[in-house]
């Protein structure tokens, strides 16, 4: 069979029938190379599993596995550099009983994982005696020979695809342990092919799978902006699948009707470079919310556009995700409405404060005489009382005893706290009919 065929994000199976052994060639075993998804860009992980496919063996002897890293996008071989790429066995991951290499005699298994000539070699030395050999109890079950981790020591990207080497099949080896003497014939035709404890190369099928990333690319689920008063806009957004994302940048543009093209500008506090709250979680897959992002604006009665962008970790690639618009109001009373009119002994005015304002609530008769002040929810007269941006405020008025039936002017005078665009104040005058 020629070299492997590659498909991105597709399980790929390479079949290499190797090592015809005693008497007949057959498939005794499957070796799986499974890539394990590791969200860290400078890490890759894979595991080697073995499945017994025949009844001819159950004690595993040893094996040599030559693998190679491939570029995910180009599907090309990436030669690894042992001074830069570090290959380690993940301790405790193997079903084998491991021990040190003992030149005198081996009672356990020993795993040697190295990068040689740009490729990965995992060689597993087995015990001398079949009595110490690991037994694949069940056929058609994949047992983990070992999990391995690759990383770069300079933080650079690690190729994510680890595959069976496309080199000669002779680079792979996989042997079982003879638990009896293999003998054919009798008398003068008696042949001993293998003795107990011998290691016999197996016919092996090699497969490998690429681990798919659980998500494709960064998704911004929501992006919101709201004016919170005092010339401040509060922004928030939610994103998921932030793999490889360094952070976010929010830029702002003043919307001018005369200039259809928005001219966005960076905001010093709205970039991940300056604001830790905008640093992405480069290894996170699930949704994460970014809130409490405040921006000071300059102008009222104007609309501001905000656009959210993300920056890739390795490449610096910038992606624009969404643009929203936020209108900045004047600091005035709005939507004032009397709730009971005509009224007899009391009435209420409900109003909104479009920004932080100082309000005085008064009631005049038609002759212009001050009858009284409206009171707040605590019964205190509303005289230069500061109301933050909000809606549904109530100003109460209780009819004084001396007030006679007739029309009255209920006046709310609002003075802006920090709105220089409103020169003096805003007023609400509501005529109310007192009936006695």
């Amino acid at each position, binding site marked *: 069979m020629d070299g492997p065929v590659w498909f991105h994000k597709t399980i790929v199976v390479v079949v290499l029938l190797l*090592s*015809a*052994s*005693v*008497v*007949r060639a057959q498939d005794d075993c499957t070796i799986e190379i499974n890539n394990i998804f590791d969200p860290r860009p400078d890490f890759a992980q894979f595991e080697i599993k073995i499945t017994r496919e025949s009844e001819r063996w159950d004690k595993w*002897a*040893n*094996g*040599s596995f030559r693998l190679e890293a491939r570029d995910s996008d180009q599907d090309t071989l990436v030669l690894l550099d042992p001074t830069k790429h570090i290959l380690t066995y993940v301790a405790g991951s193997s079903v084998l009983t491991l021990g040190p*290499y003992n*030149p*005198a*005699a081996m009672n356990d298994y020993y795993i*040697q994982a*190295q990068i*040689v*000539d740009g490729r990965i*070699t995992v*060689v*597993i*030395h087995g015990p001398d005696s079949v009595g110490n050999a690991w037994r694949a109890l069940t056929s058609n079950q994949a047992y983990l020979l070992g999990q391995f981790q690759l990383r770069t020591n300079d933080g650079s990207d690690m190729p994510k695809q680890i595959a069976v080497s496309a080199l*000669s099949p*002779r*680079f*792979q*080896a996989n*042997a079982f342990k003879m638990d009896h003497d293999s003998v054919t014939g009798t008398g003068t035709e008696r*042949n*001993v*092919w*293998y*003795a107990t404890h*011998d*290691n*016999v*190369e197996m016919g092996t099928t090699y497969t490998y799978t690429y681990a798919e990333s659980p998500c494709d690319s960064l998704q911004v689920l929501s992006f919101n902006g709201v004016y919170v008063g005092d010339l401040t806009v509060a922004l928030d957004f939610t994103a998921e699948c932030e793999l490889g994302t360094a952070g976010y940048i929010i830029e702002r543009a003043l919307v001018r009707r005369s200039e259809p093209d928005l001219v966005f500008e960076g905001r010093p506090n709205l970039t991940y470079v300056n604001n830790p709250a905008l640093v992405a979680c480069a290894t996170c897959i699930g949704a994460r919310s970014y809130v409490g992002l405040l921006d000071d604006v300059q102008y009222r009665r104007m609309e501001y556009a905000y656009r959210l962008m993300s920056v890739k970790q390795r490449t610096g690639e910038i992606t624009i995700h969404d643009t929203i618009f936020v209108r900045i109001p004047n600091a005035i009373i709005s939507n004032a409405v009397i709730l009971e009119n005509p009224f007899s002994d009391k009435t209420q005015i409900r109003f909104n404060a479009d920004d932080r304002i100082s309000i005085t609530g008064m009631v005049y008769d038609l002759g212009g005489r001050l009858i009284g002040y409206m009171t707040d929810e605590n019964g205190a007269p509303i005289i230069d009382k500061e109301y933050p941006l909000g809606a549904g405020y109530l100003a109460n008025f209780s009819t004084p005893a001396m007030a006679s039936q007739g029309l009255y002017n209920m006046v709310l005078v609002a003075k802006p706290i920090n709105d220089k665009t409103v020169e003096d104040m805003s007023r609400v005058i509501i005529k109310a009919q007192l009936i006695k």
Partner: protein
Amino acid sequence: MSVRCPIHLPFISAALIAVVCMTTAVSAQIPSTLNSQGVIHNSGTLEIVGDAIIRQDTIGGRVEYTRIGNDSQLVAHLTYWDLHFSGTARKKLIDVTEPIRARNLFSTADTLTILDLVAPSWISAEFTVRHEGIVNPGQRFGRFLLDGVRQQDISGRGSLPIIELINDSGAIVTRGGGLRVVERFDLQRGRLDNTTLDNISMLDQSWIWRDDSGSIATTPVGPRYHVRYYGESPQISGAEIPRGTTELGKLHQDNDSGLTLSSDAWVNDSMRLEGDIYTEATDSLRYKLFYVPAGTDPVFITGDEEVNGTMVRTTLQPGRTHVMNNRRTSMRFANAQLQGPVRRIELRVKPRTVPLPTNIGIDKVQRFFQVELQDAIGVPVPDSSYTLDFGYAWRVDKVDSVTYGPFEETPGPLRNKLDSLALERFVIDKYAADGLSILPTNADPFFRYSIATNVRNSGDFAIGLASYSTVWVLRTKLILEGAMRQYGGDVTPIMSTDLVASNILPLTPPPIYPYNLDPNRTTLTVAAMPDSIVDWIVVEFRTSPTDQAGHIQTGLLTKNGMIVDPTSFLPLPIRGIRPGEYHVAFLHRNHLAVMTDGRELVAPSNANRFVDMSNGANVFGGASAMKVLGLVGGTRLFGMVAGDVDQNGSITRTDQNLIWTDVDTHGIYALYDTDLDGILSTRDWNLSWNNRGRTSVVP
């Protein structure tokens, strides 16, 4: 419209003149100048009687230079459509900055039409040529180029000093031909299509030059002309070589990619080689190169050129050394008496060829000589009727050859004896020294050479060493475990050749055990390893099982178990051994050694003996000294036991540990590679492990 134009044209800036010349006196030719600084648009015929100075690059229509008289007429150098010359006034073509080009027709009227062309300039005809005149009479310079893109039609009986054909579509000679070439016809590109009826004439001592892209269809007419080959691609001679014996004067072979003769060639004046000449296109298509001159020898410019094939010298002078096929190969008769009836020497030299018969010639230098001494008409003269000094030579270094690439003619073991190699002649069934070779031999940068005096016989000659002769040929079958990939039942006894496929099998046996036992190890070099080779292997001949001072030779093990000679790739010839009975031991770098149980008769009389080491019989120590690898048609196939990488004759834990230390490497010729695939893995470890405790019984 015909316009006669003996007029002066003043400077006309950007003038467009449909017809610039009006008819003037037809009968009276008034010397005047056509001086045009503007542009003449001519679609008819422009007849120029006086001198012409025309500034424009190109002019259309037909232009005729027709001045008559004993004076001259200046010709403007530019590109014409049709250009015609007539009249007796000599036409002066003297502008050295521009050639004259005729895009459609170049014609001259008759032999009274004479063109004087200065040496740096040339005439270029791109289509039809009708030349009856003479260019540069009495001179040998003056280039006339046939350099169009369509096949050109050339005719006329005029003469031209130099014609150059530079037209991939070639040129055809028509109208009875007759064009005369004074100095040379240079066939650079394209074919000159001439016939015996429509031919060209090569004047005496003229040349035909032939580049590797040019050719001529028919041998031209000429009393004696010379031929020169040049170019960069291999050439095959053609019709430019006269079939007669007297027409070819000089032969210059300046193409270092080589020239192959397609006919006999008779060189009458001289010969110069800057590249090889092959006289044999194939072994059955042989021609001869006859060299007639008496007082001159062929000249080999750089010294490594050769006539590969047969050369005949037809004029011999007593006392003179006659250089033959190369600078160092010669024939000489000391005096007329010793020359006897010999009048011709025919010598066939085949470089890099095993002398015939090959089973005997394999011990010789790979250069074959066939000599025939003849009388004046080519009939062989009797042996011993002459006494000859035979200068013999062969290549000693890996000189690059166009035909063979770098090669060495001296077989490995003879390379230690270069000073002692003598001329030998094949007599009945073997080569024996012939004449008295003057030793030690000499060397120049290309050849090792000497002279054998007192040669008195024609025949097949070789260069060799009498003591270096084949005593026995080892025919054997030997299988290596590991290289034999199949095990068990019905197997095919073919071993792997992965080491060659991976290009890691050394071309010379490496200086490790057991190859370092062979004193001739360093002389064994394979130029290109055949793809059927498994590995190097050492054969040792012992008078007794414990005799470890026996004769040793190194051979190459093939995939089917043969051991072959590294030079000839034939079954290993055993040389330099006293004929007798020997145990034959086989030693490999990481397999347990094996030896024949009985002694083999190593002598020519035992020629057909087959030593089968794959059946477990006749193995010293019994069949258990080897390993059963499988069954071939129900019969056990035995192989040498793999895994002894520390080469101590026993397979122990040490061997396996050594393999483990390098278990990740590949692409090297490693001792630890027990399955000989060039890749170290647990496979190699397992081969050694499965043979744990086994020991070679060979002392």
